[in-house]
């Protein structure tokens, strides 16, 4: 898996957040492990997640997105594998 979800370099996210978000997207939104070697498709996956939850669709790992990702939830993917 790639090292990090693409984020705004000026954001305050730490590496733990990136890895958590990447695991979340991989589990519930199915990041392609091949395509995600370039950052673009991962950003698109993050946008799909933000769109699903009616968040601001930025493709960046902002605080609001992280809060949704950390909520307890059902284990069934939002985008099926």
């Amino acid at each position, binding site marked *: 898996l790639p090292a990090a979800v693409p984020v705004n370099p000026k954001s305050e996210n730490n590496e733990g957040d990136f890895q958590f978000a990447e695991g979340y997207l991989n589990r519930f939104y199915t990041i392609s492990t091949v395509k995600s070697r370039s950052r673009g498709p991962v950003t698109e996956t993050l946008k799909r997640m933000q769109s*699903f939850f009616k968040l601001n669709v930025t493709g960046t790992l902002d605080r609001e997105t992280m809060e949704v990702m950390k909520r307890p939830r059902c284990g069934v993917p939002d985008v099926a594998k």
Partner: protein
Amino acid sequence: YSFLSSNSKWSTNKITYRIVNYTPDLTVADVDQTIAKAFKVWSDVSPLTFTKINSGTADIMISFGTKSHGDLFPFDGPSGTLAHAFGPGSDIGGDAHFDEDETWTTTSRSINLFLVAAHEFGHALGLDHSTNPSALMFPTYSYVPTERYKLPTDDVNGIQALYGKRTVI
């Protein structure tokens, strides 16, 4: 609302369930009553009936487990993933698994078993996650009072699109 797939529904309206094991967080009676109540939210608005069996293979097998628990989708400890279920089908199809690392309650404290079970049974009947935040089938957990619980309109529309409305005789 949305469906797991276009053909993912039970071919019969008479569905059986079995509680394979129980959480130590609640009494057996509490779990039995809570699971029955979770099925009732769906049977109240559709032609489906749910019958509990105590041995053999039921359409919906219900179990509590931790981490790796016999399928390809291990649980993750407290919080995070609470439970998951499989769409209608044979073998593991229809089954619902609950993470025993959660603290299950029948109140607003910690994780309410009724709300999670009713959500998972929606999957077991063929419903996918809804993007409507007020729907039971929204993927994240939030507590709402469970006394006199009424299934949200989005979920009623979803289950009735799959199985039709309940016929009043």
